[in-house]
Protein backbone atom coordinates (compact mmCIF):
# COMPACT_ATOMS: atom_id res chain seq x y z
CA UNK A 1 0.00 0.00 0.00
CA UNK A 2 2.68 2.45 1.09
CA UNK A 3 4.77 1.57 -1.93
CA UNK A 4 2.00 2.14 -4.45
CA UNK A 5 1.22 5.47 -2.82
CA UNK A 6 4.82 6.58 -3.25
CA UNK A 7 5.11 5.53 -6.85
CA UNK A 8 1.76 7.24 -7.42
CA UNK A 9 3.18 10.50 -6.23
CA UNK A 10 6.35 10.11 -8.23
CA UNK A 11 4.27 9.92 -11.39
CA UNK A 12 3.15 13.48 -10.88
CA UNK A 13 6.72 14.70 -11.28
CA UNK A 14 6.29 14.18 -15.02
CA UNK A 15 3.75 16.99 -14.97
CA UNK A 16 6.05 19.62 -13.51
CA UNK A 17 8.86 18.62 -15.85
CA UNK A 18 7.95 21.00 -18.73
CA UNK A 19 7.36 23.91 -16.36
CA UNK A 20 10.60 23.33 -14.49
CA UNK A 21 12.58 22.86 -17.68
CA UNK A 22 11.23 26.18 -18.94
CA UNK A 23 11.96 27.85 -15.61
CA UNK A 24 15.52 26.52 -15.58
CA UNK A 25 16.24 27.58 -19.17
CA UNK A 26 14.53 30.95 -19.14
CA UNK A 27 14.94 32.17 -15.57
CA UNK A 28 17.53 30.25 -13.60
CA UNK A 29 20.33 29.77 -16.13
CA UNK A 30 20.13 33.36 -17.46
CA UNK A 31 20.06 34.74 -13.91
CA UNK A 32 23.17 32.80 -12.98
CA UNK A 33 24.84 33.70 -16.27
CA UNK A 34 24.06 37.37 -15.69
CA UNK A 35 25.59 37.13 -12.23
CA UNK A 36 28.71 35.54 -13.70
CA UNK A 37 28.96 38.14 -16.49
CA UNK A 38 28.88 40.89 -13.89
CA UNK A 39 32.43 39.90 -12.84
CA UNK A 40 33.78 40.26 -16.34
CA UNK A 41 34.45 42.83 -18.97
CA UNK A 42 32.69 41.87 -22.17
CA UNK A 43 31.49 43.57 -25.32
CA UNK A 44 29.00 40.85 -26.18
CA UNK A 45 31.38 39.27 -28.68
CA UNK A 46 34.60 37.37 -28.04
CA UNK A 47 35.42 35.89 -24.67
CA UNK A 48 34.45 37.65 -21.44
CA UNK A 49 37.51 38.52 -19.32
CA UNK A 50 37.32 38.09 -15.54
CA UNK A 51 37.93 41.35 -13.68
CA UNK A 52 36.64 40.55 -10.20
CA UNK A 53 34.67 43.28 -8.50
CA UNK A 54 35.77 46.10 -10.81
CA UNK A 55 32.30 46.63 -12.29
CA UNK A 56 30.83 47.01 -8.84
CA UNK A 57 33.62 49.36 -7.79
CA UNK A 58 32.93 51.49 -10.83
CA UNK A 59 29.22 51.50 -10.00
CA UNK A 60 29.95 53.09 -6.63
CA UNK A 61 31.44 56.14 -8.31
CA UNK A 62 29.01 56.36 -11.24
CA UNK A 63 26.91 59.50 -10.80
CA UNK A 64 24.32 58.20 -13.25
CA UNK A 65 23.87 55.09 -11.10
CA UNK A 66 23.43 57.04 -7.86
CA UNK A 67 21.04 59.35 -9.65
CA UNK A 68 19.06 56.34 -10.81
CA UNK A 69 18.75 55.15 -7.21
CA UNK A 70 17.39 58.52 -6.14
CA UNK A 71 14.91 58.47 -8.99
CA UNK A 72 13.79 55.01 -7.94
CA UNK A 73 12.99 56.42 -4.50
CA UNK A 74 10.87 59.10 -6.13
CA UNK A 75 9.13 56.46 -8.23
CA UNK A 76 8.40 54.46 -5.09
CA UNK A 77 6.43 57.48 -3.92
CA UNK A 78 4.54 57.81 -7.19
CA UNK A 79 4.07 54.11 -7.80
CA UNK A 80 3.45 52.79 -4.29
CA UNK A 81 2.78 55.40 -1.64
CA UNK A 82 0.58 57.93 -3.44
CA UNK A 83 -1.50 55.34 -5.32
CA UNK A 84 -2.09 53.40 -2.09
CA UNK A 85 -3.29 56.54 -0.29
CA UNK A 86 -5.47 57.68 -3.19
CA UNK A 87 -6.71 54.13 -3.77
CA UNK A 88 -7.67 53.75 -0.09
CA UNK A 89 -9.60 57.00 -0.01
CA UNK A 90 -11.33 56.30 -3.32
CA UNK A 91 -12.15 52.71 -2.38
CA UNK A 92 -13.59 53.79 0.96
CA UNK A 93 -15.65 56.56 -0.63
CA UNK A 94 -16.98 54.27 -3.34
CA UNK A 95 -17.66 51.37 -1.01
CA UNK A 96 -18.97 52.99 2.09
CA UNK A 97 -20.54 56.15 0.64
CA UNK A 98 -21.37 55.99 -3.06
CA UNK A 99 -22.62 52.37 -2.92
CA UNK A 100 -24.82 53.21 0.06
CA UNK A 101 -26.11 56.50 -1.30
CA UNK A 102 -26.34 55.89 -5.03
CA UNK A 103 -26.13 52.15 -5.46
CA UNK A 104 -23.75 49.40 -6.52
CA UNK A 105 -23.87 50.15 -10.25
CA UNK A 106 -22.53 53.66 -10.00
CA UNK A 107 -19.74 52.57 -7.71
CA UNK A 108 -18.66 49.80 -10.13
CA UNK A 109 -18.81 52.33 -12.96
CA UNK A 110 -16.34 54.56 -11.12
CA UNK A 111 -14.15 51.60 -10.26
CA UNK A 112 -13.95 50.55 -13.90
CA UNK A 113 -13.24 54.10 -15.07
CA UNK A 114 -10.35 54.62 -12.67
CA UNK A 115 -8.97 51.20 -13.57
CA UNK A 116 -8.78 51.80 -17.31
CA UNK A 117 -5.29 53.44 -17.45
CA UNK A 118 -3.88 50.37 -15.70
CA UNK A 119 -4.46 48.01 -18.61
CA UNK A 120 -3.06 50.15 -21.43
CA UNK A 121 0.27 49.21 -22.97
CA UNK A 122 2.70 51.48 -21.10
CA UNK A 123 4.14 52.54 -24.41
CA UNK A 124 0.77 53.70 -25.74
CA UNK A 125 0.16 55.57 -22.49
CA UNK A 126 3.62 57.06 -22.94
CA UNK A 127 2.91 58.30 -26.45
CA UNK A 128 -0.36 59.78 -25.25
CA UNK A 129 1.27 61.61 -22.35
CA UNK A 130 4.32 62.61 -24.35
CA UNK A 131 1.91 64.38 -26.65
CA UNK A 132 0.05 66.01 -23.76
CA UNK A 133 3.23 67.18 -22.01
CA UNK A 134 5.31 68.39 -24.95
CA UNK A 135 6.04 72.12 -25.23
CA UNK A 136 3.22 72.70 -27.73
CA UNK A 137 1.04 70.08 -25.99
CA UNK A 138 -2.18 70.13 -24.04
CA UNK A 139 -0.91 71.04 -20.58
CA UNK A 140 0.70 74.19 -21.86
CA UNK A 141 -2.34 74.98 -24.01
CA UNK A 142 -4.55 74.72 -20.92
CA UNK A 143 -2.22 76.94 -18.91
CA UNK A 144 -2.27 79.50 -21.71
CA UNK A 145 -6.05 79.33 -21.99
CA UNK A 146 -6.51 80.18 -18.32
CA UNK A 147 -3.92 82.94 -18.41
CA UNK A 148 -1.11 81.13 -16.63
CA UNK A 149 1.34 81.34 -19.54
CA UNK A 150 4.27 81.84 -17.20
CA UNK A 151 3.76 78.33 -15.79
CA UNK A 152 4.12 76.65 -19.18
CA UNK A 153 7.20 74.44 -19.30
CA UNK A 154 8.97 71.96 -21.46
CA UNK A 155 7.73 69.33 -19.00
CA UNK A 156 9.70 66.34 -20.24
CA UNK A 157 12.62 68.25 -21.71
CA UNK A 158 13.59 70.26 -18.65
CA UNK A 159 15.76 68.44 -16.14
CA UNK A 160 14.05 70.03 -13.14
CA UNK A 161 10.50 69.05 -14.16
CA UNK A 162 10.89 65.79 -16.07
CA UNK A 163 10.93 63.47 -13.06
CA UNK A 164 7.77 65.04 -11.63
CA UNK A 165 6.00 64.87 -14.96
CA UNK A 166 6.87 61.17 -15.29
CA UNK A 167 5.79 60.59 -11.67
CA UNK A 168 2.41 62.18 -12.37
CA UNK A 169 1.88 59.83 -15.32
CA UNK A 170 2.79 56.86 -13.12
CA UNK A 171 0.30 57.87 -10.45
CA UNK A 172 -2.35 58.11 -13.16
CA UNK A 173 -1.52 54.55 -14.22
CA UNK A 174 -1.33 53.02 -10.75
CA UNK A 175 -4.33 54.33 -8.81
CA UNK A 176 -6.76 51.93 -10.53
CA UNK A 177 -4.84 48.84 -9.48
CA UNK A 178 -4.87 49.83 -5.80
CA UNK A 179 -8.53 50.83 -6.00
CA UNK A 180 -9.65 47.51 -7.47
CA UNK A 181 -7.76 45.40 -4.95
CA UNK A 182 -8.94 47.49 -2.00
CA UNK A 183 -12.56 47.41 -3.10
CA UNK A 184 -12.54 43.66 -3.31
CA UNK A 185 -10.99 43.57 0.15
CA UNK A 186 -13.77 45.74 1.49
CA UNK A 187 -16.32 43.23 0.23
CA UNK A 188 -15.05 41.01 3.07
CA UNK A 189 -15.78 43.55 5.79
CA UNK A 190 -18.83 42.81 7.89
CA UNK A 191 -21.31 45.62 7.14
CA UNK A 192 -22.55 45.57 10.73
CA UNK A 193 -19.18 47.03 11.75
CA UNK A 194 -19.92 50.14 9.75
CA UNK A 195 -23.51 50.23 10.94
CA UNK A 196 -22.42 50.03 14.55
CA UNK A 197 -19.87 52.81 14.00
CA UNK A 198 -22.49 54.93 12.32
CA UNK A 199 -24.84 54.47 15.27
CA UNK A 200 -22.04 55.58 17.56
CA UNK A 201 -21.89 58.74 15.47
CA UNK A 202 -18.42 57.99 14.22
CA UNK A 203 -17.41 60.46 11.51
CA UNK A 204 -16.60 59.20 8.02
CA UNK A 205 -12.95 59.79 8.74
CA UNK A 206 -13.22 57.90 12.01
CA UNK A 207 -14.67 54.89 10.23
CA UNK A 208 -11.96 55.16 7.59
CA UNK A 209 -9.21 55.31 10.20
CA UNK A 210 -10.50 52.66 12.61
CA UNK A 211 -12.36 50.21 10.37
CA UNK A 212 -11.37 50.50 6.73
CA UNK A 213 -7.60 50.71 7.08
CA UNK A 214 -7.15 47.96 9.71
CA UNK A 215 -9.47 45.62 7.80
CA UNK A 216 -7.56 46.20 4.57
CA UNK A 217 -4.11 45.52 6.04
CA UNK A 218 -3.63 42.23 4.10
CA UNK A 219 -4.50 43.95 0.82
CA UNK A 220 -2.29 46.93 1.64
CA UNK A 221 0.60 44.51 2.18
CA UNK A 222 0.06 42.74 -1.13
CA UNK A 223 -0.33 45.97 -3.06
CA UNK A 224 2.71 47.51 -1.38
CA UNK A 225 4.82 44.47 -2.23
CA UNK A 226 3.74 44.19 -5.86
CA UNK A 227 3.98 47.91 -6.57
CA UNK A 228 7.37 48.18 -4.83
CA UNK A 229 8.71 45.41 -7.01
CA UNK A 230 7.24 47.16 -10.04
CA UNK A 231 8.77 50.48 -8.95
CA UNK A 232 12.22 48.88 -8.75
CA UNK A 233 11.78 47.53 -12.29
CA UNK A 234 10.12 50.53 -13.94
CA UNK A 235 11.32 50.75 -17.53
CA UNK A 236 8.79 51.32 -20.32
CA UNK A 237 7.45 54.71 -19.15
CA UNK A 238 11.01 56.02 -18.89
CA UNK A 239 12.00 54.60 -22.25
CA UNK A 240 9.00 56.16 -23.96
CA UNK A 241 8.66 59.46 -22.15
CA UNK A 242 12.24 60.62 -21.64
CA UNK A 243 14.77 57.89 -22.49
CA UNK A 244 16.30 58.63 -19.11
CA UNK A 245 17.03 62.22 -20.07
CA UNK A 246 17.43 65.13 -20.07
CA UNK A 247 20.96 64.70 -18.73
CA UNK A 248 20.08 61.50 -16.88
CA UNK A 249 17.48 63.41 -14.88
CA UNK A 250 14.98 60.53 -15.08
CA UNK A 251 17.18 57.50 -15.56
CA UNK A 252 16.48 54.39 -13.48
CA UNK A 253 18.56 51.24 -12.93
CA UNK A 254 16.55 49.27 -15.51
CA UNK A 255 17.05 51.89 -18.16
CA UNK A 256 20.72 52.23 -17.27
CA UNK A 257 21.36 48.52 -17.65
CA UNK A 258 19.36 48.36 -20.88
CA UNK A 259 21.41 51.29 -22.16
CA UNK A 260 24.74 49.67 -21.33
CA UNK A 261 23.69 46.23 -22.60
CA UNK A 262 22.47 47.33 -25.99
CA UNK A 263 23.84 50.80 -26.71
CA UNK A 264 27.33 51.01 -25.24
CA UNK A 265 27.84 47.22 -25.23
CA UNK A 266 29.38 47.33 -21.78
CA UNK A 267 27.71 44.02 -21.01
CA UNK A 268 29.63 43.24 -17.81
CA UNK A 269 28.83 46.62 -16.33
CA UNK A 270 25.15 46.36 -17.25
CA UNK A 271 25.06 42.87 -15.71
CA UNK A 272 26.44 44.30 -12.46
CA UNK A 273 23.65 46.89 -12.35
CA UNK A 274 20.93 44.33 -12.97
CA UNK A 275 22.46 41.89 -10.48
CA UNK A 276 22.35 44.53 -7.74
CA UNK A 277 18.79 45.33 -8.72
CA UNK A 278 17.83 41.66 -8.46
CA UNK A 279 19.41 41.30 -5.03
CA UNK A 280 17.64 44.38 -3.69
CA UNK A 281 14.30 43.22 -5.10
CA UNK A 282 14.58 39.74 -3.68
CA UNK A 283 15.68 41.03 -0.27
CA UNK A 284 12.73 43.40 -0.22
CA UNK A 285 10.37 40.63 -1.26
CA UNK A 286 11.61 38.30 1.46
CA UNK A 287 11.39 41.06 4.05
CA UNK A 288 7.80 41.85 3.09
CA UNK A 289 6.67 38.22 3.00
CA UNK A 290 8.20 37.74 6.47
CA UNK A 291 6.35 40.77 7.81
CA UNK A 292 3.16 39.52 6.24
CA UNK A 293 3.39 36.05 7.73
CA UNK A 294 4.19 37.57 11.13
CA UNK A 295 1.19 39.80 10.85
CA UNK A 296 -1.21 37.00 9.95
CA UNK A 297 0.22 34.88 12.77
CA UNK A 298 -0.48 37.74 15.16
CA UNK A 299 -4.08 37.83 14.01
CA UNK A 300 -4.52 34.13 14.58
Amino acid at each position, binding site marked *: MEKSKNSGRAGYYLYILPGMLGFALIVLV*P*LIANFAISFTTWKGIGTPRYIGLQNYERLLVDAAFWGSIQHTLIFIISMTILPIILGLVLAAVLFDYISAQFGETLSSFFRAGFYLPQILPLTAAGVLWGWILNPIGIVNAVLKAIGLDFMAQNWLGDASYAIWAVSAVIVWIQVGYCLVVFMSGLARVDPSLYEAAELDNASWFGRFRYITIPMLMPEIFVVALTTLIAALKVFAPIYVLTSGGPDNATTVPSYLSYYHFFTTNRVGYAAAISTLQTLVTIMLGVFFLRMQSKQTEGER
Partner: protein
Amino acid sequence: MAATASLSTPIASDAPADHRRNKGFTRWIVLAILFVSLGGTLFPFFLAAFNAIKTPADYAANGPLAFPHSFDLTALKNFWANVDFTRKLFNSILISGCTAILAVVLSLLNAYAIGIGRVRGGRVLLVILLISIMAPQEALIYPLYYMAKQVGLFDSMLSVILIIGVLHTAFGTYLLSSVLTTFPREIIEAAQIDNASRWQILWLVIVPVLRPTLAVLATFFFIWTWNEFLIPLVFLVSNNNQTVSVAMGVLSGANTQDPTAVAAASLLGVTPTVIFFLIFQRTLTRGVAAGAVK
Protein backbone atom coordinates in the same frame (compact mmCIF):
# COMPACT_ATOMS: atom_id res chain seq x y z
CA MET B 1 -22.75 40.69 17.75
CA ALA B 2 -26.14 39.08 17.09
CA ALA B 3 -27.63 41.01 19.98
CA THR B 4 -26.36 44.29 18.64
CA ALA B 5 -27.74 43.48 15.24
CA SER B 6 -31.25 42.69 16.49
CA LEU B 7 -31.23 45.73 18.75
CA SER B 8 -30.20 48.02 15.99
CA THR B 9 -32.75 46.83 13.48
CA PRO B 10 -35.60 49.18 14.43
CA ILE B 11 -33.23 52.12 14.76
CA ALA B 12 -31.40 51.25 11.58
CA SER B 13 -34.56 51.53 9.55
CA ASP B 14 -34.87 55.15 10.61
CA ALA B 15 -31.21 56.01 10.62
CA PRO B 16 -30.50 55.78 6.89
CA ALA B 17 -33.48 58.01 6.11
CA ASP B 18 -32.22 60.55 8.61
CA HIS B 19 -28.77 60.23 7.30
CA ARG B 20 -29.98 60.88 3.78
CA ARG B 21 -31.98 63.93 4.59
CA ASN B 22 -29.16 65.46 6.60
CA LYS B 23 -26.50 64.78 4.09
CA GLY B 24 -28.61 65.48 1.03
CA PHE B 25 -26.30 68.22 -0.13
CA THR B 26 -22.99 66.60 0.83
CA ARG B 27 -23.72 63.52 -1.21
CA TRP B 28 -24.03 65.56 -4.39
CA ILE B 29 -20.76 67.32 -3.66
CA VAL B 30 -19.01 63.99 -3.14
CA LEU B 31 -20.52 62.69 -6.35
CA ALA B 32 -19.45 65.81 -8.23
CA ILE B 33 -15.87 65.51 -6.96
CA LEU B 34 -15.78 61.89 -8.07
CA PHE B 35 -17.08 62.76 -11.52
CA VAL B 36 -14.48 65.49 -11.90
CA SER B 37 -11.67 63.11 -10.86
CA LEU B 38 -12.95 60.45 -13.23
CA GLY B 39 -13.18 63.06 -15.96
CA GLY B 40 -9.58 64.01 -15.24
CA THR B 41 -8.54 60.35 -15.40
CA LEU B 42 -10.26 59.75 -18.71
CA PHE B 43 -9.49 63.17 -20.21
CA PRO B 44 -6.37 61.99 -22.09
CA PHE B 45 -8.49 59.43 -23.97
CA PHE B 46 -11.03 62.02 -25.06
CA LEU B 47 -8.27 64.39 -26.09
CA ALA B 48 -6.65 61.76 -28.26
CA ALA B 49 -9.98 60.84 -29.83
CA PHE B 50 -10.95 64.47 -30.54
CA ASN B 51 -7.65 65.49 -31.99
CA ALA B 52 -7.08 62.38 -34.06
CA ILE B 53 -10.05 63.24 -36.25
CA LYS B 54 -9.18 66.93 -36.79
CA THR B 55 -7.49 68.34 -39.83
CA PRO B 56 -4.11 69.92 -39.02
CA ALA B 57 -5.61 73.29 -40.02
CA ASP B 58 -8.46 72.87 -37.53
CA TYR B 59 -5.94 71.96 -34.84
CA ALA B 60 -3.78 74.95 -35.62
CA ALA B 61 -6.73 77.32 -35.65
CA ASN B 62 -8.67 76.14 -32.60
CA GLY B 63 -6.09 74.42 -30.47
CA PRO B 64 -6.12 70.98 -28.86
CA LEU B 65 -8.92 71.67 -26.41
CA ALA B 66 -11.63 72.65 -28.87
CA PHE B 67 -14.25 70.20 -30.10
CA PRO B 68 -13.40 69.08 -33.61
CA HIS B 69 -14.81 71.36 -36.28
CA SER B 70 -13.64 68.99 -38.96
CA PHE B 71 -13.81 65.27 -39.46
CA ASP B 72 -10.76 63.89 -41.14
CA LEU B 73 -9.43 60.36 -40.97
CA THR B 74 -6.22 61.14 -42.86
CA ALA B 75 -4.05 61.14 -39.75
CA LEU B 76 -5.44 57.78 -38.65
CA LYS B 77 -5.09 56.28 -42.12
CA ASN B 78 -1.56 57.60 -42.50
CA PHE B 79 -0.43 56.20 -39.18
CA TRP B 80 -2.08 52.89 -39.95
CA ALA B 81 -0.31 52.65 -43.30
CA ASN B 82 3.04 54.02 -42.12
CA VAL B 83 3.55 51.55 -39.31
CA ASP B 84 1.67 48.74 -41.10
CA PHE B 85 -0.69 48.55 -38.16
CA THR B 86 -2.55 45.53 -39.55
CA ARG B 87 0.66 43.58 -39.36
CA LYS B 88 1.41 44.82 -35.81
CA LEU B 89 -2.07 43.88 -34.66
CA PHE B 90 -1.73 40.45 -36.18
CA ASN B 91 1.66 39.94 -34.51
CA SER B 92 0.35 41.09 -31.14
CA ILE B 93 -2.68 38.82 -31.35
CA LEU B 94 -0.59 35.85 -32.44
CA ILE B 95 2.07 36.33 -29.77
CA SER B 96 -0.38 37.14 -26.97
CA GLY B 97 -2.68 34.26 -27.90
CA CYS B 98 0.08 31.64 -28.10
CA THR B 99 1.73 32.93 -24.92
CA ALA B 100 -1.56 32.80 -23.04
CA ILE B 101 -2.16 29.19 -24.13
CA LEU B 102 1.40 28.13 -23.34
CA ALA B 103 1.37 29.80 -19.93
CA VAL B 104 -2.03 28.38 -18.99
CA VAL B 105 -1.01 24.85 -19.99
CA LEU B 106 2.31 25.02 -18.13
CA SER B 107 0.62 26.52 -15.06
CA LEU B 108 -2.05 23.84 -15.14
CA LEU B 109 0.49 21.01 -15.35
CA ASN B 110 2.57 22.49 -12.52
CA ALA B 111 -0.47 23.09 -10.36
CA TYR B 112 -1.79 19.58 -11.03
CA ALA B 113 1.40 18.07 -9.65
CA ILE B 114 1.56 20.48 -6.72
CA GLY B 115 -2.11 20.81 -5.80
CA ILE B 116 -3.49 17.37 -6.64
CA GLY B 117 -0.34 15.23 -6.76
CA ARG B 118 1.06 16.94 -3.65
CA VAL B 119 4.54 16.15 -4.92
CA ARG B 120 7.29 16.41 -2.39
CA GLY B 121 8.94 19.82 -2.50
CA GLY B 122 5.90 21.40 -4.09
CA ARG B 123 5.82 24.29 -1.62
CA VAL B 124 9.51 24.91 -2.13
CA LEU B 125 8.99 24.94 -5.89
CA LEU B 126 6.31 27.58 -5.49
CA VAL B 127 8.70 29.77 -3.54
CA ILE B 128 11.48 29.27 -6.09
CA LEU B 129 9.09 30.16 -8.90
CA LEU B 130 8.66 33.56 -7.24
CA ILE B 131 12.03 34.45 -8.74
CA SER B 132 10.38 34.73 -12.16
CA ILE B 133 8.05 37.37 -10.81
CA MET B 134 10.59 39.27 -8.75
CA ALA B 135 13.74 39.27 -10.85
CA PRO B 136 13.96 42.32 -13.10
CA GLN B 137 13.78 41.31 -16.74
CA GLU B 138 17.05 43.15 -17.36
CA ALA B 139 18.80 40.51 -15.27
CA LEU B 140 17.68 37.81 -17.72
CA ILE B 141 17.63 39.64 -20.99
CA TYR B 142 21.25 39.56 -22.09
CA PRO B 143 21.87 35.85 -21.54
CA LEU B 144 18.53 35.13 -23.22
CA TYR B 145 19.46 37.39 -26.13
CA TYR B 146 22.78 35.59 -26.46
CA MET B 147 21.16 32.14 -26.22
CA ALA B 148 18.53 33.06 -28.80
CA LYS B 149 21.24 34.17 -31.21
CA GLN B 150 23.13 30.91 -30.66
CA VAL B 151 20.14 28.70 -31.40
CA GLY B 152 18.80 30.82 -34.25
CA LEU B 153 15.69 32.02 -32.43
CA PHE B 154 16.65 35.67 -32.48
CA ASP B 155 14.10 37.97 -34.14
CA SER B 156 11.48 35.23 -34.07
CA MET B 157 8.11 35.45 -32.42
CA LEU B 158 8.63 31.96 -31.02
CA SER B 159 11.42 33.18 -28.72
CA VAL B 160 9.15 35.88 -27.30
CA ILE B 161 6.29 33.41 -26.82
CA LEU B 162 8.51 30.94 -24.98
CA ILE B 163 10.14 33.53 -22.73
CA ILE B 164 7.04 35.46 -21.73
CA GLY B 165 5.02 32.24 -21.45
CA VAL B 166 7.46 30.77 -18.94
CA LEU B 167 7.66 34.04 -16.97
CA HIS B 168 3.87 34.19 -16.62
CA THR B 169 3.71 30.57 -15.55
CA ALA B 170 4.84 31.49 -12.04
CA PHE B 171 1.72 33.54 -11.38
CA GLY B 172 -0.54 30.93 -12.96
CA THR B 173 1.01 28.13 -10.96
CA TYR B 174 0.40 30.08 -7.78
CA LEU B 175 -3.21 30.80 -8.53
CA LEU B 176 -4.09 27.33 -9.83
CA SER B 177 -2.22 25.46 -7.08
CA SER B 178 -4.21 27.23 -4.43
CA VAL B 179 -7.41 26.44 -6.32
CA LEU B 180 -6.45 22.78 -6.84
CA THR B 181 -5.36 22.23 -3.23
CA THR B 182 -9.00 22.68 -2.27
CA PHE B 183 -10.34 20.61 -5.17
CA PRO B 184 -12.79 17.98 -3.81
CA ARG B 185 -10.81 14.73 -3.43
CA GLU B 186 -13.93 12.55 -3.76
CA ILE B 187 -14.30 13.49 -7.42
CA ILE B 188 -10.74 12.42 -8.15
CA GLU B 189 -11.04 9.24 -6.09
CA ALA B 190 -14.23 8.35 -7.93
CA ALA B 191 -12.42 8.78 -11.25
CA GLN B 192 -9.51 6.67 -9.98
CA ILE B 193 -11.89 3.86 -9.09
CA ASP B 194 -13.17 4.03 -12.65
CA ASN B 195 -9.57 3.38 -13.68
CA ALA B 196 -9.01 6.78 -15.21
CA SER B 197 -5.35 7.59 -15.75
CA ARG B 198 -3.82 10.78 -14.35
CA TRP B 199 -3.79 12.29 -17.79
CA GLN B 200 -7.51 11.54 -18.23
CA ILE B 201 -8.36 12.88 -14.78
CA LEU B 202 -6.60 16.12 -15.60
CA TRP B 203 -8.34 16.71 -18.93
CA LEU B 204 -11.72 15.06 -18.37
CA VAL B 205 -12.35 15.86 -14.70
CA ILE B 206 -10.32 18.85 -13.61
CA VAL B 207 -10.15 21.04 -16.71
CA PRO B 208 -13.94 21.17 -17.21
CA VAL B 209 -14.43 22.24 -13.58
CA LEU B 210 -11.65 24.82 -13.77
CA ARG B 211 -12.72 26.23 -17.12
CA PRO B 212 -13.88 29.64 -15.78
CA THR B 213 -10.66 30.14 -13.79
CA LEU B 214 -8.55 29.08 -16.76
CA ALA B 215 -10.41 31.58 -18.94
CA VAL B 216 -9.71 34.43 -16.51
CA LEU B 217 -6.08 33.41 -16.34
CA ALA B 218 -5.80 33.27 -20.13
CA THR B 219 -7.39 36.72 -20.42
CA PHE B 220 -4.83 38.10 -18.03
CA PHE B 221 -1.91 36.49 -19.77
CA PHE B 222 -3.18 37.74 -23.11
CA ILE B 223 -3.36 41.36 -21.97
CA TRP B 224 -0.10 41.26 -20.02
CA THR B 225 1.67 39.88 -23.06
CA TRP B 226 0.03 42.48 -25.27
CA ASN B 227 1.49 45.18 -23.01
CA GLU B 228 4.91 43.55 -22.59
CA PHE B 229 7.65 45.85 -23.83
CA LEU B 230 11.28 45.08 -23.02
CA ILE B 231 11.38 41.48 -24.25
CA PRO B 232 9.71 42.11 -27.63
CA LEU B 233 11.76 45.30 -27.99
CA VAL B 234 15.00 43.36 -27.67
CA PHE B 235 13.97 40.23 -29.54
CA LEU B 236 11.81 41.50 -32.38
CA VAL B 237 14.12 43.83 -34.21
CA SER B 238 12.65 43.56 -37.69
CA ASN B 239 9.72 45.77 -38.47
CA ASN B 240 7.68 42.81 -39.68
CA ASN B 241 7.81 41.03 -36.33
CA GLN B 242 7.05 43.96 -34.06
CA THR B 243 4.05 44.15 -31.76
CA VAL B 244 1.71 47.10 -31.19
CA SER B 245 3.43 47.87 -27.90
CA VAL B 246 6.89 47.98 -29.47
CA ALA B 247 5.66 50.00 -32.46
CA MET B 248 4.30 52.60 -30.02
CA GLY B 249 7.52 52.63 -28.01
CA VAL B 250 9.71 53.07 -31.07
CA LEU B 251 7.48 55.84 -32.32
CA SER B 252 7.80 57.93 -29.15
CA GLY B 253 8.98 61.44 -29.77
CA ALA B 254 9.37 60.68 -33.47
CA ASN B 255 6.91 63.16 -34.94
CA THR B 256 5.82 65.66 -32.37
CA GLN B 257 5.81 68.21 -35.20
CA ASP B 258 2.39 67.02 -36.30
CA PRO B 259 0.10 66.89 -33.25
CA THR B 260 -2.87 65.31 -35.04
CA ALA B 261 -0.61 62.47 -36.22
CA VAL B 262 0.53 61.78 -32.65
CA ALA B 263 -3.06 61.92 -31.43
CA ALA B 264 -3.97 59.39 -34.11
CA ALA B 265 -1.09 57.14 -33.06
CA SER B 266 -2.10 57.30 -29.39
CA LEU B 267 -5.70 56.60 -30.25
CA LEU B 268 -4.81 53.53 -32.30
CA GLY B 269 -2.33 52.38 -29.67
CA VAL B 270 -4.86 52.42 -26.85
CA THR B 271 -7.95 51.29 -28.78
CA PRO B 272 -7.30 47.50 -28.80
CA THR B 273 -6.84 47.40 -25.02
CA VAL B 274 -9.84 49.64 -24.45
CA ILE B 275 -11.87 47.14 -26.49
CA PHE B 276 -10.53 44.21 -24.43
CA PHE B 277 -11.34 46.21 -21.36
CA LEU B 278 -14.95 46.77 -22.39
CA ILE B 279 -15.33 43.06 -23.11
CA PHE B 280 -13.52 41.72 -20.05
CA GLN B 281 -14.08 44.53 -17.54
CA ARG B 282 -15.76 42.34 -14.94
CA THR B 283 -13.37 39.44 -15.39
CA LEU B 284 -10.38 41.75 -15.10
CA THR B 285 -11.37 43.77 -12.09
CA ARG B 286 -12.45 40.65 -10.21
CA GLY B 287 -9.44 38.66 -11.34
CA VAL B 288 -6.96 41.29 -10.16
CA ALA B 289 -8.48 41.04 -6.75
CA ALA B 290 -8.58 37.24 -6.67
CA GLY B 291 -4.97 37.09 -7.79
CA ALA B 292 -3.84 39.61 -5.22
CA VAL B 293 -5.39 37.95 -2.22
CA LYS B 294 -4.25 34.44 -3.08
